[in-house]
């Protein structure tokens, strides 16, 4: 419960953060809300030698209307997503899910960028951004690049971010539905939480819907192609069963 000794650097700009990442490489970890990283450090499963605290980069905390999408600063706290009027009007699913994360203390600390960059398949926000077909903006020594959410999550706790990059913004298309599924421009995106080593799109369900299947039939194939792990909370079979039930319910809610 006591982490290995580490250096702590609080930065006041993105450039300063990138500079430290460039200097320390793999040895450095970015600290935002800390709710995923610090427990790993206390268990000595993560042993960074330098923590680069980006928690006070207030410039990266915003929810803005950007025309066809909503732009969200990577350091926006869950609580700010939960209470954002813009999200409530344009991407209500994101506001709703942010409000389901942990408890109020967690939501006041945790950030959307931290949640996505951590890449935990059991977290809700990565799946929502995936279902929405979001785009992630990262800055590194070579400047800025955008990454589709679809290709961002590479493996268990692994993302497309390089060790020298900082996630700065999340762009989500405007959508109107609350639930684990999102509908946009007539197409339905469905993403699954904790059904594999990364958040997943329920592609069989999406294809069935696109082909005009009923909600019931489309939901019945929600677990197709997934390989969920088993643990004390649920076996793989039970997870696959739950996926069909919960996707059906989300689609019904989205349709009503």
């Amino acid at each position, binding site marked *: *419960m*006591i982490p290995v*000794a580490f250096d702590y650097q609080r930065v006041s700009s993105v450039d300063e953060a990138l500079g430290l990442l460039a200097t320390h490489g793999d040895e450095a970890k970015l600290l935002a809300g800390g709710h995923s990283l610090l427990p790993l450090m206390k268990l000595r499963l993560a042993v960074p030698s330098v923590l680069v605290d980006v928690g006070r980069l207030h410039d990266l905390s915003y929810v803005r209307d950007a025309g066809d999408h909503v732009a969200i600063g990577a350091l926006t706290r869950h609580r700010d997503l939960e209470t954002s009027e813009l999200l409530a009007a344009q991407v209500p699913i994101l506001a709703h899910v942010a409000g389901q994360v942990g408890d109020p203390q967690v939501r006041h600390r945790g950030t959307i960028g931290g949640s996505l960059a951590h890449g935990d398949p059991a977290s809700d926000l990565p799946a929502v951004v995936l279902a929405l077909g979001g785009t992630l903006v990262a800055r590194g020594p070579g400047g800025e690049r955008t990454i589709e959410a679809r290709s961002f999550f590479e493996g268990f706790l692994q993302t497309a971010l390089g060790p020298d990059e900082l996630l700065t913004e999340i762009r989500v298309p405007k959508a109107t539905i609350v639930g684990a599924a999102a509908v946009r421009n007539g197409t339905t995106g469905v993403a699954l939480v904790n059904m594999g080593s990364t958040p997943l799109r329920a592609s069989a369900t999406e294809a069935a819907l696109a082909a005009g299947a009923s909600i019931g039939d489309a939901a019945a194939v929600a677990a197709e192609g997934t390989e969920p792990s088993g643990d004390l*909370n649920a076996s793989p079979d039970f997870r696959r*069963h739950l996926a069909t039930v919960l996707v059906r319910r989300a689609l019904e809610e989205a349709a009503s």
Partner: protein
Amino acid sequence: MSILGNRVVRKEDPKFLTSGGTYVDDLKIDGAARVTYVRSTSAHARIRSVDIDEARSAPGVLAVVTAADIELDPLPLEMPMLNEKMPQPWLATDVVRYVGEPVVAIVSETQAEGADAAELIFIDYEPLPVLVDTEGALEGSIVLHPEAGTNVSFELQFGRDESLFDGCEVVVRRRVNNQRVAPCPLEVRAVAARWEDDGRLTQWSSTQAPHSVRDALAKAYGLFEDEVHVISPDVGGGFGAKIGGYPDELLIAWLARRVGRPLKWTETRSESMVALGHGRAQLQDIEIGGSRDGTIGAYRLTVLQDSGAYPRVGALLSFMTRTMASGTYRIPKVDFNSRSVVTNTTPVVSYRGAGRPEATAAIERAVDLFAAEIGMDPAEVRRRNLVPPDAFPFTTPLGTTYDVGDYGRALELALEASGYADLRKEQARRREAGEVRQLGIGLSAYVEITNGVPGSEFAAVEVRENGTAVVRTGTSPHGQGHVTSWAMLVSDALGIPIDSIEVVHGDTDVVPRGVGTFGSRSLQVGGVAAHQAAGQVVDKARQLAAKLLEADPADVVLDKVGQRFHVAGTPAVAKSWGELAREASSEPGGLSAETDFTPPGATFPFGCHVAVVEVDTETGKVTIERLVAVDDAGRILNPLVAEGQIQGGLAQGAAQALLEQVAYDDDGNPLTANLADYTFVSAAEVPSFETTSMETPTPVNELGAKGIGESGTIGSTPAVQNAVVDALSHLGVRHVDMPATPERVWQAIAAAR
């Protein structure tokens, strides 16, 4: 008018709610270094070697110690009935027997240096076959303690009456698991120890029983009891797991002597999950028989108790299960047999209810199984079999004598408060409509035993020269509100307001004797003692006042409102408490009295809980919609404090039914060794409780009070479990083991279909 029976807010709370309590880890002890234990990561293994060289020279390290360094006598048995051939050593010697067993102790300047040094220690383990399940332990092909030659750590074998169910029209049999749970006090264990210049030992301990820690230390270090000073400052919960002295707690003083420094040790949460004792862990075979008119004719309970790697009090808990086996029912024939066995798991200790929740869970499940089999409403089956109010004192077939009760009234009150008939209608409607979310209604008509282990308790009351009073008590509260309740008891006798009454506990130099706080004993033993000591002080003061007023003591009255004594009819000439205390100051002890109260017997709180749950038949998720509790703990001194005890108990009991379990894999690795994996209950998982108090005073003590600390836990677990099964009974489900997780519920539905 008496203060007793009023909702008096807790005197101790302003501190806890503002500046916070002072726990052992908060204490500033000059020069204190830290202790870190390196614990076994293997469930069963021979220790080939322990490499401590690198750790010894690590920064800040003062000492690294293994079993070979310790020249103390083996630890004394915690209880005489335990098997002396299964002792836990101070530190593991040649074999480790559970993940979490201490192997090496490190003393370092800081906790962080200790954690770093621990990583430098290499223990070479040669794996031995692992015993996790109790049936395997009973079978005995692996023997954990070769000296003992058996894995059986304790047994109650009275023989099996093969004719028990003769004449029964219906017999139902079921194996149920009362799973292992972790007590999870919010404050983990913590100890600080310092050897004083005069050779005395001071130990600060987060404990429920400082005097037994004192006695254990005296025995371990060859000291007289008055050479050991144990202090328990604020204690953040114990739930039974902080009663005895664990080896790793008692060793701190030896380490302190070795390095010549005061030492402090606070376990981490992950450490606590494997090193603090666990609770429950009973595999039960229940058999119940009777006739189709709803009369229960016979009941048999056969228990296999997991005692963990080294038997402690948990090995003996089946004794309490036996004591309460037949619950609130008049059953003509009852059979009970139990065996406790050792396994490669954390030792089992007492946990809120300690053997009685297990008894209640078994009989309440049995009654529901019987009701389902004969197709009768479970409330009606209970109604027909409860011990009637005119049968008390009532002796069960196993020889337990219940003091007093009105079980039928508790049942009817609970049914009424829950709107039972309407709930059944709503249940029928949902079943008819085939709704996804089905309603379940679960009952538990419980009785339990409090102060079940005979003993006395010390109290002293003294009035000071400034007219305030101090109570010294041998009880050791850690959340129960004794500071308020004891002040109320003394205030009631003396007339001195509670704000002017100090309650002192948890310091063996100031309180010479004490037993402690566990088993719901404190009010009925320690509270009565305080009440009696206060009465003796009043008598003393009356004698003194009579002398000063030149009157017959029989004519002198205490004016509680004015807090003074005068001759009846002449209130103008009076002697205040302060004056009398000053007058008595020349006498030894001043104006004080002390007493040790030993009650003539145990008391038997009872009640009835109704749980209403909604079960999502597609996901298996159970939501507790309502928990209605009628509890009778005799005379209630402070309803606010009593309700606090009930509410906490209800939450913990419901948690066992739905959420909590300590799990191991087949190799004995704990799967729930932190609070991310152990599904500890929080306020979000329970509804607002609906509580109703019933007061049937016990004749056992002058206050008429029984214990209330564990009733909530004992009654609620089977109510919630029965409700889950009830929600699914129309689908053919008869039982769901605890915790009724979504997957278990889903599987039960699938299996019944």
